[in-house]
Structures are given as structure tokens and as C-alpha cells.
């Protein structure tokens, strides 16, 4: 994230949780001057949090993508413009993990608590 550093991850990292972590960082670092970054990072983080808790709907994914485009194209500085990058790239390469959280209500890496999902429900077949 901007420092040129590399993070090596294997299949024990949940890509949705990773995206949520970076969005939390950007939300906390936003200066608040421009609206898309100040309010957009808050909403994006909340949607990602909903996904990791197993509360999200398929429409949340669409909203997340629209917000990503808004922040990239309208934010005043580089922080807001690049804040959605982890979301955009995890959606591009690990979309199945998002779908597993939202539709199947399970976390493939076993990282997310899926707190909102009742016990046993995560085993159900995709709707």
C-alpha cells in the first residue's frame, strides 16, 4: 500500500478480510477534505465488514464496485484515488471468495467470524 512493500499471503488469508483491513486503514487516514474519500471510505468499509460478518446481499457487491469507481475518479488526492485498489484487485482475482461470503455464507479461508450467520447455516447449498 504505497510503500513499495510486498505482502506474501497463502490460502489461509481471506481476501475479503484483507480488503477490509486496507479500507479500514484508508478510512482512518482520510483527512476529510473531499466528500468521496471522507464519506466513501466509511461506506466501503461498512460494506466489507458486512460481507465478513455474513450479512451482505448480492446488491452490496454492486454498490461496492460503484463506490470504487467513484473514489478512483473523483477523490481529490492519491489517498482516496487509490483507496479502492485492494477491493478492485481482490474482486478481479478472487471474486469467488466474495461470492462464497455473500451467497454461501461461508469464509473459504476460515478467517471471517461470519457472526451474523446462525450455526449450521453455512453448510447450506447455494441458493
Amino acid at each position, binding site marked *: 500500500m504505497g510503500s513499495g512493500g510486498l505482502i506474501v499471503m497463502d490460502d489461509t488469508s481471506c481476501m475479503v478480510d484483507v480488503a477490509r483491513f486496507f479500507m479500514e486503514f484508508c*478510512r*482512518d*487516514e*482520510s*483527512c*476529510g*477534505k*473531499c*466528500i*468521496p474519500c*471522507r*464519506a*466513501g*471510505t*466509511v*461506506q466501503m468499509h*461498512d460494506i466489507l465488514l458486512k460481507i465478513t460478518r455474513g450479512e451482505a446481499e448480492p446488491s452490496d457487491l454492486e*454498490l461496492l464496485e*460503484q*463506490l470504487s469507481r*467513484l473514489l478512483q*475518479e*473523483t*477523490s*481529490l488526492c492519491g489517498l482516496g484515488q487509490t483507496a479502492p485498489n485492494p477491493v478492485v484487485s481482490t474482486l478481479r482475482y478472487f471474486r469467488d471468495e466474495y461470492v462464497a461470503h455473500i451467497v454461501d455464507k461461508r469464509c473459504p479461508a476460515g478467517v471471517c467470524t461470519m457472526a451474523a450467520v446462525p450455526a449450521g447455516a453455512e453448510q447450506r447449498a447455494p441458493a
Partner: protein
Amino acid sequence: MSVKTFTLDGREVSAAENQTILDVADEAGIAIPRLCHLEGLSDVGACRLCLVEIAGTSKLQPACLARPEEGMVVTTDSERLRSHRRMIVELLFAERNHVCSICEVNGYCDLQSLAYRVGVDHVRFPYQSPSLSIDASHSRFAIDHNRCVLCTRCVRVCDEIEGAHTWDVARRGQAARVITDLNRPWGESRSCTECGKCVQACPTGALYEKIRSRAEMIKSRDFLACLKTARERKVWLR
């Protein structure tokens, strides 16, 4: 003085030196949505509502700050810009507690008319409903942080026009608030001259006069244009 000719929404227009795209659009009768811009104050390009498309570059530019170049092709209205503007206004409504029906400026509010203008008929985001304070310690005015959109018009009018610099922004991100003096209650402020310019400049009902009740306060901003002409051209006109 060099005049620049460029294309604005398919129309040939010319800009005098120091004119921004927003200035030229206003002259040409093209109303670009805006919130943090107020004629007579410096521009900060923070609300991102006046973003326009410039041919040859994918990056959107704020019309309030961008200077026209010779031969530039500018588009102020497109599907992409409409969708961005709408979402920005939705984000503002979800961020704090904007309840028009109980607001002093209901019917005369910049945020409200902006929402009508960009077509916000519902908000797709969950309301954050933060618990925010109201500072009514001042004898004549009050600030309701629930209605503040952090446009910083109060900060700029107080600093640039009144010269008092009572207002400032404290903290960052979603925790950002406009404050008086060093975050002291407004009523205890030593720098405030009680001129009320901040109240008139405020686009919403965040800053209001205590004597007004619901939907009664029409804000007057004529003094800004008057002071601007007086200072720049030494002509006192009303």
C-alpha cells in the same frame, strides 16, 4: 490580457485571464452543480460536484479551480458525471443527520436543492446517524453539527472577508468538525466579531440565527459580491 477560446458543452466560449471554467459556465448560463464554491471566496475544490470532463484526459477536473486552455473541449454533463454527483450527494445525506422537515432553512437550503437537482430520490447507503452536538452558547447564532457538510465556507468567509479566522476544522476523516477558536464554545470565543457572515455563507442549516424558526431562514449572500467589487475595483455598489 489574453483571451482563451474553448468549447463548453458544444458551445464556443471565451475566457478572460484568471477566469475558471466555472466562471465561464456561469456567464454562459450553464449551471454546474457546486457546494463548496461561493462567489467572493477562494476555491478549495473539496466537494467534487463541479468535476467536468476534459477531452484528451481521463482525469476529471474541478471546474471551480481549472483554468481553460486554448482549444480545450469541456463537457459539464454526462452519464458518468451525473452518476458521480448523485452518489456524492447521497454520501452526504447518509453521513450526518439531515432532516429537512425540522430545519430552519427548509426550502432555502443549498444541499436540499442540490439533491433535487442531481435527482436523489432515495439514499442507497445506510444512514450513519452519528450522535453530534449543537453549540448554542453564542447569544445570536448556533451551530448544529448534524447538518454540517464540512464545505468550509464559514472558515473561508471568516478568514478572508471578516479577517477574524474564528472558524477552523479540527480532527480528520469522519471525525472532522468545524470549531471556533481553539475548540472553545462559540459563546466564549474572543476572536468572533458577531458579524454573522459565516451564518449567511453556510449552505445548510448547520449555522443559523437563533431567532428563526423552522423553514424561516433565507440566507443572504449579496454582501460577498459587494465586498468583492469594493476590494478589487474600489467601487462601492449595492
